[in-house]
């Protein structure tokens, strides 16, 4: 069964990307310097909330936006494929994970892998459908 469907790819791609340990250590240090917190995994609730507000994911659920259960189902399928792992509780490279889903090396390789079954004949330019990038000052009236 194809795991990296639009849904699987979007769920996998919504987890922080896997990097080799040496790069990850530098990244974690830089993240801690910049924001005070290194984000290397997400809980199901965090991921579901993230995807619920993702404009590119609004059509991926059976009835529109993804439900928490649909996100969980996608994560389980990705876990079976070895693309994500669930961490009940633990520390990796100094970062704590609890009830968290984390991308694996195989997951990173999968989202960057050559596409299977792509057209052999040239099809010309591919136009990328962009969604608006929205920033909010966060001010309260």
């Amino acid at each position, binding site marked *: 069964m194809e795991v990296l469907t639009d849904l699987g790819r979007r769920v996998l*791609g919504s987890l922080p990307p896997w990097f080799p340990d040496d790069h990850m250590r530098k990244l974690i240090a830089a993240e801690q310097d910049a924001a005070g917190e290194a984000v290397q995994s997400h809980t199901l609730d965090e991921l579901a909330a993230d995807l619920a507000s993702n404009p590119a994911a609004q059509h991926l659920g059976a009835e529109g936006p993804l439900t928490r259960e649909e996100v969980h189902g996608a994560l389980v399928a990705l876990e079976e494929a070895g693309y994500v792992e669930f961490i009940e509780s633990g520390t990796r490279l100094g970062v704590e994970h609890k009830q968290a889903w984390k991308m694996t090396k195989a997951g990173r390789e999968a989202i960057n892998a050559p596409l299977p079954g792509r057209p052999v004949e040239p099809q010309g330019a591919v136009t990328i459908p962009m969604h608006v990038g929205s920033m909010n000052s966060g001010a309260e009236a």
Partner: protein
Amino acid sequence: MGSGFSRKAAAGLLEYLLGKAETKVSKPAEVFLALCTAEVKESTLSAGLSEATYTTYARKAIKPADLSEATEAQPSIIETVNELIFAKVDSGSSTIISWAICTSGTTGGGAILAFGQCTSTALSTTQTPPTVAAKALKVELKAT
């Protein structure tokens, strides 16, 4: 009592951030569009981006002339006015799901200025060059 950006300030900030015009500090000469295979978050650093990996991939420069003026509206919007065409895919392929505008043209370098999603799109030697239509890339800033 309200607080936050005025519409004019939001427009000025967008124009500064994306290299259209100067406000109080000097604007970048150009910014660069990165195509990503994983989502970008507000906490993501440029070195933490998962960018396209096809062999000829490089971030695409967005020059000031490629951008509209930011609208003085709620939200303020700035958008590309020209088509952005990336280098043709010579070998390899990628499926991209998001984008980021960065200060550097070097993959993994610089800082991220803005980011967003795109519909999952396959880029390959037969589906090339990757193209962003004029007016397709928009960044908005909500003043409140």
